[in-house]
């Protein structure tokens, strides 16, 4: 246990000193501010352009923005934020393979599974903190400008999206244990998500795919029921666990 905590501490120090924490913080804060800002500014921009548009024969009707517009932005932007997260953290294992820094700790008797556990935990922790930051900022602005109560199942939809992030982290950890290069890990994660979006077109299996968790927008508008997420949630949690467990097994036998 102590060694795991030491490793987590070391990972955290690295996040801080390498500047990755600052980058993530800035990106997620930026997205958090952008969501309400875009919702607020779009009508204003449209009004400003209305005259020119009118000359070309187009009439623009501007409706007042609501919290829903801001949340729509949130669910449009959060995939970008997740991509940035994966890009920034994708080499958390492979960086140590190429530099050989891990060999020294392992030859001191550090159990291999502790490396996997500490890295997975730090990823989960970072994703959770970043997600809450982004969500919290958007929530606060929305509450200030409009009224969040128009959005239904807000907390639940956010949980679903957060869980999707955990699922992606599960993939990241597993592929990091299997593969050697950071690019390969990113490619493999991307490929799985892409394959899921393709499979998503088959309407029959939509609700069991982890990617269904990203339908937060539909959820807050009331287009889909909360209950329809049960399968996707269960499957995502299961896959995340399986990925992490498999990562430990693979990593135990990995040649470094």
């Amino acid at each position, binding site marked *: 246990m*102590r*060694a795991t905590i*030491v*490793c987590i501490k*070391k990972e955290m*120090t*690295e996040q801080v*000193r*390498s500047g990755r924490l600052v980058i993530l913080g800035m990106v997620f804060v930026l997205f958090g501010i952008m969501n309400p800002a875009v919702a607020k500014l779009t009508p204003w921009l449209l009004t400003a352009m209305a005259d020119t548009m009118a000359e070309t024969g187009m009439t623009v009707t501007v409706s007042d923005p609501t919290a829903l517009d801001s949340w729509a932005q949130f669910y449009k932007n959060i995939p970008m934020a997740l991509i940035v997260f994966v890009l920034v953290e994708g080499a958390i294992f492979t960086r140590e393979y190429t*530099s*050989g*820094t891990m*060999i*020294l*700790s*392992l*030859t*001191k*008797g*550090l*159990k*291999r599974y502790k490396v996997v556990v500490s890295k997975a935990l730090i990823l989960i922790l970072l994703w959770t903190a970043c997600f809450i930051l982004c969500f919290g900022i958007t929530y606060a602005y929305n509450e200030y400008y409009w009224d969040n109560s128009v959005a239904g199942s807000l907390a639940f939809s956010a949980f679903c999206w957060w869980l999707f992030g955990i699922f992606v982290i599960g993939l990241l950890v597993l592929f990091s244990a299997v593969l050697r290069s950071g690019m390969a890990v990113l490619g493999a994660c991307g490929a799985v998500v892409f394959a899921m979006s393709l499979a998503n077109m088959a309407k029959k299996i939509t609700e069991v795919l982890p990617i269904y968790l990203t339908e937060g927008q539909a959820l807050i508008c009331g287009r889909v029921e909360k209950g329809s997420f049960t399968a996707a949630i269960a499957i995502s949690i299961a896959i995340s666990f399986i990925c992490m467990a498999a990562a430990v097994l693979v990593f*135990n*036998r990995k*040649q*470094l």
Partner: protein
Amino acid sequence: MILHIDGLYKSFGDKEVLKGLCMDVPEKSVFGFIGKNGAGKTTTMKTVLGLIRPDKGEIRVNGEKVTYGNTATNRYIGYLPDVPEFYPFMTAREYLTFCGEVTGMEKKAMESRTDELLELVGLKDEKHRIKGFSRGMKQRLGIAQALFGRPKLLICDEPTSALDPVGRREVLDILSAVREQTTVVFSTHILSDVEKICTDVAFIENGVISISGKLSDIKKRYRNDKYILETETPEGICAVLKAFPSAKESGGNMLTFSEKDESVKEIMLFLVENDISIVKLEKAEPTLETLFLEVTGK
């Protein structure tokens, strides 16, 4: 024996690197593991550390069997890779503290050990982060981290190869200083380093050990009865050659002869009688270099 390797085989693809390597490292020795680049030194060491899975063979460290992956025998071993890499965002002190914490050492013991080792490797006053360290500094920190858990066996993979003469001297001094505390195995292709500090050696060639044993024994075993004579002028050599036809000219006013063919006394007498001035007359000691070349068949 602190390290015992028996019949070790390993191939990478169709390249057979180790072909039944056997080696014994006695306790409290400084063991030179000598071989050309690509002879299998690093592979052998990494297998001992459980980082490479052997195809066949057994390794015992302090009597315990080494298994691939999580091997418990690593608690006896301190390892210094050829190019040690540390977390660049830490300072030397922080890194050693991290090593101590990972091995679950008491805080007090850890702090005193860190001080002791930083002093030993001369990094006590170094406050910068590791990313700014020179190779020599990294190598010295590498020794410090390898020694941290007071290992019974210190394995160093080519610790001096990448260093300048000053850095090499420093590393060799540290290694010979720690021989009181631990057994040192280090691989190298720099023979003068071996001659400076090793008590035992093993030559690896073609995936097997071709010679191994105490350095002094090996030198004795390969010592021959050859003498080298160098005169000041070429005429001197000619005169000696004429009088002692079994001697062989070896270029540059030098000749070699064997004691069983010619008596050294007679040659000395001949030199005095004919007033031939010489540069040197010496017994040809086998150097590791000649041994190495002999072993590698060059």
